[in-house]
Each structure stands twice: as C-alpha cells, then as structure tokens.
C-alpha cells in the first residue's frame, strides 16, 4: 500500500540529490521499504523476471542492430554474418531469439497467476488492463522481430498475418497495401518492421513503468486474495523479496541458459534457415509457439473475417475480465468450483497451442484437430463470458482466513492445504 515516504537522506550528497531529483527516495520507497504481503509464493516472482527479460531483449537487440541490415537482399546474410563473423554474435542472436520465448513463457505464467489469484479484481483493474496492453505490444514486437531474419517463415508468416487485414470489408485491401508499402510483403515492409521492432520495446518499458506505478497504489495482491490489514501482514520488499526474486531469477536464467547453449533452435522452425522466397510457400506456415493458440483459433473458423474477429476478440476479451468475474472472493484457493474451470481453461489453451502447431488437416486418434481447436476456442469464450459471471454468483467459497499474518504466522490449521 503506498503511504507517506519514510526515506531519510543521511549524507550531504543524498540531501542534495533528494531536493533536486528524488530518485533515491523513489528507489527507497519502491524497492527497499515497500510493504509487501509476507505470503507471496513462487508465482509472484515472475514480474521481476519479466523486467529482466525486457532488459535482456533490449540490450541484445541494440547490439544485434549494430550488425543487422534491414534490406530484403542483405538481411538473411547479415544474420548469418552475425552468427559466424561477429565476435560472440552467435551468443547475441541466440540470447535474443530464445529470450523472446522465455519472455512469453514468463508472461503467460504471470497472466495465469493473475487469473488464479484474482489479481485483476478491484482495485487492481487498471493494472490488469495495462498488462493486457503490454501483452499486445509484446505480440506486435515479436511478430515484427520474427520477420527480420527474412527466412521462409519470416516472409510467409508476415504474408499470412498482414493478409488478415484484407478480411476487413471495403478498406481491408487498402490497409494491407498501406502496411506493406507495396503490393505484397517486401523490402518496404521489412524496413518499417525493423523501425517498429526497435521502437516498441521502449514503449513497452514506459507502459511497464505505468504498470508498476499502478501496482504500488494498492500494493500487491497475495495468494489468499485478502487485503493487507495490519503491518504484520507485510514485510519490507528488501531484503525479503529482493533475495527471493534474485533466487528465482537465477533459476529462470538457468533454464534460459539451457536453451541458449544446448538447444538454441528448439523453439525455432528449420524453414527459417532458408532465405525467403516469394514464389515458394512452405508446406506448413506456423508462427512461433507463443502465438500458436491464437493461430489455432484463427484457423478453426472457415470464414476469413469471422476467424479474424474470433482471434482478436479473444485478446480483447481479456480487457473485460475485471467486470466479467462477479465473485466477491479473489483467490481460487477459496473458490473450489472456479478452480476446476480454471484448470480446464489452462488445458484448453495448451490444446489450442498444440493444434496451432500442426497442419490444418491433421488428426489424432481419429479426431480432426480442427474440431479440437473449435471446442477449445468455444471453451475459451465460454470461460470468460459465461463461466466467470455465473460461477461468481452461484459458487459457495471456502471460509477466508482472518488475515495474512494469521494465516502465515498463526494457527496453520486455518490456512488451506495449498
């Protein structure tokens, strides 16, 4: 909870700085003394991890931009030159490419945490909405970035997604031509995508600032979903959460390092090691894994415009969640019915991701995957638009603990098993 600042500048230099630019005060109040619920678990470390991911992407990206050439004839070769000739270029490139996957892995965990513990509920609605905005910006950045190596997947993924705009009646083709700067994806498109790919991460950084600022007004939610009532419910952010975040960050970096050094092409597609050829379409066009669920939704609808609407609608739905959920209880720990639907939602998302990665006419155990995608897409919408409002009203939640402190420090029988 944000309260009056307790910062007390000690040295002369600190006082001088504090009266001119209170940056140390800001650091003190937000990172050092900020009262944080004492019961935050591992799922709450991903915000810090995400900040680290953004920093890594920006730093490796700027370094790559020193060597990359955004021209349709030269782009592919410039990336290979980075991999072969630039000192540690292979490291920069693999960190950036795998860093994007790690970034999305972390953001999905972060979002699912928010759903499970009701972090989107009042008074944190705006934190959630700003978060959806960050997610959208991330997807746009990743989409632009994937085009830059100008491999087969880069080119054809760009072609498929920009062609979606032609589904819009009347103005669709004009919008697509305007996006391309040409009659199809080409050099003009590549250059502007590079410009936007460089720009958006800094916009993301600014919006992340807003996200954290909005968070620091009410303070963090917690796994119990109950408000902070007394100072016993909280601990200062430093050293409790600085050390906890640092530890889990290192675990995350270990996973990152395993991919970068031992399986750097695990998330990638071999077709992207072939230079873009506008005359030859690869047999299966797939985006990177983190966009697959939405890709599956798009392909599950036989009508082009409806498919686009369903896909974008799925992301737009996220904005309304704070008002769709009618429950008075935040955390699914105390919502036995909602919890089941939540896990089913997670399964649906994973299934959608799997379907998105297979070819359109694939089937497993005799079931065409397009039907699995349709059912999972329906469940996606039903979960937010029907289940959330209805379950909130009809569910009987479990008894909430009296306070965070009592749950953590006091009689542990009062706290549920999870």
């Amino acid at each position: 909870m944000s309260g009056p600042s307790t910062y007390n500048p000690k040295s002369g230099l600190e006082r001088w700085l504090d009266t001119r630019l209170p940056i140390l005060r800001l650091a003190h109040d937000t990172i050092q003394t900020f009262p944080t619920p004492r019961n935050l678990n591992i799922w709450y470390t991903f915000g810090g991890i995400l900040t680290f991911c953004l920093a890594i992407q920006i730093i490796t990206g700027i370094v790559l931009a020193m060597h990359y050439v955004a021209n349709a004839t030269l782009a592919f070769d410039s990336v290979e030159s980075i991999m072969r000739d630039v000192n540690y270029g292979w490291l920069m490139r693999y960190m950036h490419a795998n860093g994007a996957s790690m970034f999305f892995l972390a953001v999905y965990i972060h979002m699912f945490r928010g759903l499970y513990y009701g972090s989107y509920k009042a008074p944190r609605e705006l934190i959630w909405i700003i978060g959806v905005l960050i997610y959208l910006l991330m997807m746009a950045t990743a989409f632009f970035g994937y085009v830059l190596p100008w491999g087969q997947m880069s080119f054809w993924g760009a072609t498929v997604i920009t062609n979606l705009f032609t589904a819009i009646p009347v103005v669709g083709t004009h919008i697509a031509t305007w996006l391309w700067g040409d009659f199809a994806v080409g050099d003009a498109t590549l250059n502007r995508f590079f410009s936007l790919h460089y720009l958006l991460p800094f916009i993301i950084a600014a919006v992340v600032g807003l996200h954290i600022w909005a968070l620091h007004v009410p303070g963090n939610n917690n796994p119990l979903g109950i408000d902070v009532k007394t100072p016993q419910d909280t601990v200062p952010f430093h050293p409790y959460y600085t050390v906890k975040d640092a530890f889990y960050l290192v675990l995350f970096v270990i996973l990152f390092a395993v991919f970068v050094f031992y399986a750097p092409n695990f998330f990638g597609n071999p077709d992207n090691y072939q230079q873009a050829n506008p005359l030859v379409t690869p047999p299966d066009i797939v985006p990177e894994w983190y966009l697959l669920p939405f890709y599956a939704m798009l392909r599950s609808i036989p009508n082009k415009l409806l498919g686009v609407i369903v896909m974008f609608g799925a992301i737009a739905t996220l904005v309304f969640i704070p008002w769709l959920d009618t429950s008075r209880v935040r955390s699914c720990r105390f919502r036995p019915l909602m919890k089941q639907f939540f896990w089913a939602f997670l399964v649906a998302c994973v299934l959608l991701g799997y379907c998105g990665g297979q070819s359109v006419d694939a089937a497993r155990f005799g079931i065409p995957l397009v039907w699995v995608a349709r059912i999972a897409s329906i469940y996606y919408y039903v979960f937010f638009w029907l289940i959330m409002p209805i379950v909130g009203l009809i569910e009987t939640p479990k008894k909430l603990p009296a306070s965070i402190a009592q749950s953590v420090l006091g009689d542990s029988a009062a706290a549920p098993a999870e």
Partner: protein
Amino acid sequence: MAATTHDAGTRRDFLYVASGAMGAVGVAAIAWPFIDQMNPSTAALALASTEVDLSAVQPGQQVIVKWRGHPLFVRRRTPAEIASAKAVDVNSLPDPLAYNDNLPDNSPATDANRAIKPEWLILIGVCTHLGCTPTVSTPQMPEGDYGGWLCHCHGSQYDTAGRIRKGPAPRNLQVPPYSFLSATRVKVG
C-alpha cells in the same frame, strides 16, 4: 540467544556478500561478449591481410591496392630509383626513422630499411600530413623534385624510398608488415 542472532547475522552477511559479489562477477563476465562484439569481426579480420600479385607490374610502374581500407602503393623500382634512394644521407632527412612495421621502431630510414627487396617498394599510400593520397612520379610525368611522390593537397614531396623531403608532412610514408610468399606474390598484413 544473543550469540545465535549474532552468528545468524554474520552468516547472513556472508551469504549476502558472497551472492552479491558472485552476481557482480557474473555481470562483468557476461559484459565482455557485449563489448567484444563491437571489435572487428572475423570477416573484417580476413581482409586484414591482402595478397598482391606482382607479376604484371613493370619496372618504374606502381599499382595501388586496397588494404585495410587504405590505398597501398606497390612500386617496382628501376635501378636508377634504387640508386638515388641509396645515395641519400639519412641524417639530412627531415625524418630519419624508417617507420617500417617489419623492423624495430627506431630503425633509421636507410633505403635497406624501407624495402625487404630493393626492387619492390611497398608503402601505405596515406600522406602523413593530413591523410590525402600522394600522386606517384614517373619519368613521363614527374611529380615533385625527388622522383617519388607529390601530395597535391598541401605540397608534401616524397623520394624514391617514400621518405618525406619537403613540405608539411612530418613523417616518412609508413611501411606495412609484409612478407614475400614467392617471387611474384607478397602478403601484406
């Protein structure tokens, strides 16, 4: 009780200091690749060496080759040009040092110290005044008074061993590191 807390305090301090120090070391260690990536790549370094084919160069003729972004003068000297270069008293030169990367730094600018084989004079074609490319002097088209080069930018004149004789340039033309791979092939750099 107090002793335990004190021990716990120093133990925690040690872990804090150790983790912090290790983290700092890690950041410094990973910083090196980010700095090194700006150094010339292996593609640039591959062009750091150039091989020049000498077979087509006639006596009294000069070819200019690009080396590390600079013009490289490869001149096949006539016996007269070699003789006139040898006849010069090193102590009378404005710059008495050889500036030959194949030799120690303070070698004098004798003709022998300016070329591995007297017939072949290999110099970096960058005027030591302000960086223009001097023009070569030939019997048909003399440039300057010393039979070597004249820099048209500010009038520096070099002799047939590429040594500065007149004009604002402070130093003799630089001799790059080079070696003969064969009688007709030289590797520069």
